[in-house]
């Protein structure tokens, strides 16, 4: 009988009341959402104090004190001496130059790769897509020293491309191009990793709309895609740049540490330190630290912008339809 009943039945909205017998009235549910909040036990005071103190303690010992120490050591002989440490040594000046050459080029290579990879991964479904997503993370997983050694194996005299390179009078190891290569490898995931979620969240509709409105690929990229991803891109660039300037391991292996030729700032710090020239080493280290602080401030600012974008005044007030 019951089955037949259902057979002739057409679901009609607002019919719930008619079927009430086996439905449970809402009021009989014991937990109203708000009662969760009211009842949630707050952590006891001592737990909160302890955790906060622990976190602050670690930060102080591991971050604040060392950073202050770097500046204190660098400025121990006064500002005049500090300036001389930085500017008098031609090798130090050259190291700054090398870093300022290598980092921007690596960042540019990253932008090109990151945008291309993010576009491919977020917009297309193709064979090997999952593999590409995994491969992007390889530089994060591999130790930088190993990355450096890979380049030695590839471009060294006994390496894979070594004989060919030598026959053509080219050298990659122990040169600035080698540094760029190693730095680019190590920083490769930064921009792509930032952009993939951003592009997936935005979705392809705006680009398709532009296409159907008659825009070509170039116009779609410059006028639609880029403006939409610019903050994510900038964020990735900042992180990438910080890593590119601070990179030590991979660069250490491929540079050969030829002072005045292939030493970047972090390598030069180490060279100076090994030469028992601590004041100069700390002076240069303080410059690297300042670059890091600037990066951090930029990062905070960009994050603020991204957040603000998300909170954009959503309709409601201007809803005058």
């Amino acid at each position, binding site marked *: 009988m019951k089955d037949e009943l259902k057979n*002739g039945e*057409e679901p009609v909205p607002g019919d719930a009341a008619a079927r009430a017998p086996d439905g449970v009235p809402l009021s009989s549910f014991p937990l109203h959402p708000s009662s969760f909040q009211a009842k949630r036990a707050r952590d006891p005071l001592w737990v909160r104090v302890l955790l906060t103190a622990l976190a602050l303690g670690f930060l102080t010992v591991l971050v604040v004190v060392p950073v202050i120490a770097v500046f204190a050591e660098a400025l121990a002989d006064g500002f005049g001496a500090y300036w001389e440490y930085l500017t008098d040594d031609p090798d130090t000046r050259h190291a700054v130059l090398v870093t300022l050459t290598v980092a921007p080029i690596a960042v540019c290579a990253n932008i090109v790769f990151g945008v291309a990879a993010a576009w491919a991964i977020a917009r297309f479904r193709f064979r090997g897509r999952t593999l590409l997503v995994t491969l992007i993370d390889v530089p994060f997983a591999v130790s930088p020293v190993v990355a450096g050694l890979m380049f030695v194996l590839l471009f060294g005299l006994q390496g894979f491309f070594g004989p060919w390179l030598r026959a053509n009078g080219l050298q990659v190891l122990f040169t600035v191009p080698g540094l760029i290569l190693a730095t680019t490898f190590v920083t490769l995931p930064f921009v792509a990793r930032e952009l993939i979620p951003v592009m997936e969240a935005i979705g392809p509709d*705006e680009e*398709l709309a532009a296409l159907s409105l008659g825009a070509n690929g170039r116009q779609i990229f410059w006028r639609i895609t880029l*403006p939409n991803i610019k903050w994510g891109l900038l964020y990735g660039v900042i992180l990438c740049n910080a890593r590119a300037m601070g990179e030590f391991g991979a660069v250490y292996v491929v540079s050969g540490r030829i002072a005045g030729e292939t030493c970047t700032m972090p390598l030069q710090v180490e060279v100076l330190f090994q030469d028992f020239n601590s004041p100069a080493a700390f002076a240069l280290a303080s410059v690297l630290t300042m670059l890091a602080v600037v990066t951090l401030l930029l990062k905070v600012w960009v994050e603020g912008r991204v957040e603000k974008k998300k909170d*954009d005044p*959503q*309709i409601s007030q201007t809803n005058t339809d």
Partner: protein
Amino acid sequence: MSITVQNVTKRFGAFVALDDVSVTCPAGELVALLGPSGSGKTTLLRVIAGLEVPDGGTVLFADDDITRHSARDRNVGFVFQHYALFRHMTVFENVAFGLRVRKWPEQRVKERVKELLHLVRLEEKAPLYPANLSGGQKQRIALVRALAPEPKLLLLDEPFGALDAKVRAELRDWLRRFHDELNVTSIFVTHDQEEAFEVADRVVVLNKGRIEQQGAPIEVFEHPANEFVMDFLGNVNKLPVRVEGGRALLGETGDVELPAKVFGASANGRTDAYIRPHELDISRTAEGGNCMLAKVVHINPAGSVVKVRLLAEDFGLMINVDIAPDRYRALALKPGESVFVTPKAAKIFEPDYAI
């Protein structure tokens, strides 16, 4: 410009989104692609727009085969379900986009955008960003943005899907008037049969990647081609019948005969009959005798017809009946009362042995 889709097939992996679909849209008409979700209606729209490439078949604009043309070259206005307004551009720049990429001179761009914004009464929103518009306003901007480059064809994907009921109804009327003024061939996708019937000149019903029926709304509604269309058009009583000697009799026993044409193939046996709620009548007396006794379960008087729900206990059936308010008042129905229900019309479909 007329649109012809011939034998189009589209697969996504193992899923067949469109299976040998052929549709014609006469020039200047407003056509609705109607179907449940997953029926392939949006895919068909995107194939026509050039946003999807079909695996087989052809798409003709008038007499030109444009199957392999890029969406960019088709000169089609496409309105996305979620508007897809350019969020970093003002309303003005959104509407101007299609003109700017076509390198219209600045003066003409300004005039055209102004004209279009005037058309949808949103001139004062020109300097605002899409985030500051309501859903209905976004929808109208998306529409004029698509219309700005003077497309030959306008395609709309669930144009009112994301709006609340009142705005929906307004925009629906507005779209119809707008279409009549512009005289652009338009195709829109919807899962709402009421929307399709109210607005379109022609309705195409899709299910599981196939076309079930296409034609004028009245034709589709009055002569549904099969059980799916009948069911999908909504609000129908599906009643089990037994066929004896060419007569359709309701239920397991009894002799209430349905006024339906019985096909030879189901001359004897069991099948289903479809009766729309307005094809049933309620009365206090068993006039004519060909009626079933039923108890009133629920009455919904809110609307242009009074919806009555009854339980025919002898047959074990729930029945929905629509009666005119006058009739409702004359009968003075109350829940729990027993009345007589008479079928005035019914439909039985020829069994589909292909399945």
